[in-house]
């Protein structure tokens, strides 16, 4: 078992690094190529160029995930542009982004190994199997940010677990950083943050209720402050040409829900994209009583169902054609990985309560 685990760990890390290093320079359409990768290249060539774009009033509306225009905040291109400046010119910003995601996933794997409450070898094998699914390989090479969102959500869950176990100052700091990073990263980051808090708070039953409520409250406050920051930014910009949001809260469409469920099932059983990874994670969650993972998956899918029901009808078309829904599924899978692997919320019967 230990040998299998070590081989899986080595293979998984090597796979992530090699995949990222060989990521293509092809400019994919829209999100990645159209907005943030060109700005990262611009930042690489001209220091401060991305910040200067803020003054044009062109960029700011694109930075508002709050309004549903889910471009990456300006920090993303800046950081990747700075990192790209250290690399040879032949290494594109798209490849730097792939390396960033690979590094986050390796970090996630290491943290899972250090924090699982039972069998570390089994957790490693399971994590390696999940990270080896074909969709992750293709997605890692594209420069999209969904893997980053999923990894950030997973890091927030791990940080919350750390605070529950040992409420040290550095653990609280990690919760603050991961929560801020996740909410600021992309529109659906807020959904993952809220679902993660609910899953951890409800299912870590071996920790005293009062402590769980306090940690959940503080994390919700972090999420709220970050959302409020966007609102404040809106108010501070004079005459900003704001785009309309993509959600219509007064036009709830229940008819979208069965279609959404159909498309979720259709995508999840598409073995050419996922293999059997979804049946596996649900089987593991049920047989090992990882209730937190089930709450995480179920909560996120429910929240996104609501988004589809109040979003424009074209969202269902996107779901049907695979433009959007399988990326959300990837985020949900990575966000729930620590809970599936057995970090923290094990709710074992008879486990001693931590006061």
């Amino acid at each position, binding site marked *: 078992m230990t040998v299998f685990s070590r081989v899986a760990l080595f293979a998984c890390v090597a796979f992530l690094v090699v995949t990222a290093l060989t990521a293509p320079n092809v400019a994919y359409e829209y999100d990645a*190529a*159209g907005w943030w990768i060109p700005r990262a290249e611009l930042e690489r060539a001209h220091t401060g160029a991305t910040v200067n774009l803020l003054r044009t009033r062109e960029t700011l509306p694109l930075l508002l995930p709050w309004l549903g225009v889910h471009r990456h905040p300006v920090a993303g291109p800046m950081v990747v542009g700075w990192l790209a400046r250290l690399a040879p010119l032949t290494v594109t910003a798209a490849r730097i982004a792939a390396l960033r995601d690979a590094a986050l996933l390796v970090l996630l794997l290491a943290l899972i190994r250090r924090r699982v409450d039972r069998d570390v070898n089994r957790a490693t094998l399971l994590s390696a199997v999940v990270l080896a699914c074909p969709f992750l390989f293709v997605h890692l090479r594209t420069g999209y940010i969904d893997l980053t969102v999923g990894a950030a959500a997973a890091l927030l869950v791990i940080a919350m677990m750390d605070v529950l176990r040992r409420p040290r100052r550095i653990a609280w700091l990690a919760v603050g950083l991961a929560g801020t990073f996740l909410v600021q990263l992309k529109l659906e980051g807020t959904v993952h943050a809220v679902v993660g808090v609910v899953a951890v708070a409800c299912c870590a039953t071996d920790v005293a209720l009062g402590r769980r409520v306090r940690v959940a409250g503080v994390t919700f406050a972090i999420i709220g402050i970050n959302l409020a920051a966007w609102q404040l930014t809106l108010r501070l910009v004079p005459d900003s040409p704001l785009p309309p949001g993509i959600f219509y809260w007064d036009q709830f469409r229940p008819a979208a829900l069965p279609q959404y469920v159909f498309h979720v099932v259709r995508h999840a059983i598409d073995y050419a994209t996922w293999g059997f990874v979804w049946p596996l994670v649900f089987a593991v969650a049920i047989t090992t009583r990882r209730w937190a993972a089930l709450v995480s998956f179920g909560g996120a899918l429910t929240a996104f169902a609501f988004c589809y029901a109040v979003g424009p009808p074209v969202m269902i078309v996107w779901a049907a054609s695979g433009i959007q829904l399988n990326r959300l599924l990837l985020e949900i899978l990575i966000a729930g990985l620590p809970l599936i692997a057995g970090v923290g919320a094990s709710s074992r019967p008879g486990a001693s309560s931590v006061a």
Partner: protein
Amino acid sequence: MNPCFADPLGRGVALSTLAQVLLDGANGVAQAQRLCTSLDPRLVAASAAALVVLLAFLVRAVRRGSRWWLAAIATVVASYTPGWIHALALRADRPAAQAVLTDDVAAARTTYTNAMRSALASTPPATCFVPEFRDTCVEFSGIYLPAAADLWPRHRCIGGESSAVTVAVSACSPTRAEARIIP
């Protein structure tokens, strides 16, 4: 032509490899429902191979009395085979085709950018422009934004900025694009 790439949108339009990548990006990935309108024999062969591997692992696990979770993980790994074959060998942006594809996309971007730059040549450097697609194939509209980024400090208008210049863009081919300012 690979049947997976023949008519992905069911509109009777056969897209080129380049158009597939520009349209799909990472989104379509390995979805048989979307990319295949007929059953690809290579996917069938891959599925059969995966089944054989799966059975081999299961038999071995049972004979040796191994843990069932090992068999389950082996099942999952075997189930990845069709997806990996698709990603590595069949997809339009498979690694082996990457170099050619990179050149094609770069050429298409250059064509687009040159057309836009030519149309905007007589405008001040900080011009704000609004694109307007005319007679444009939908699969190539996605490449517009990278082209727009290359035109910096001219920039795309958002909303109702006052100094906008409207540029009509037309491109139905990766090797040909036209742009002109609408008075």
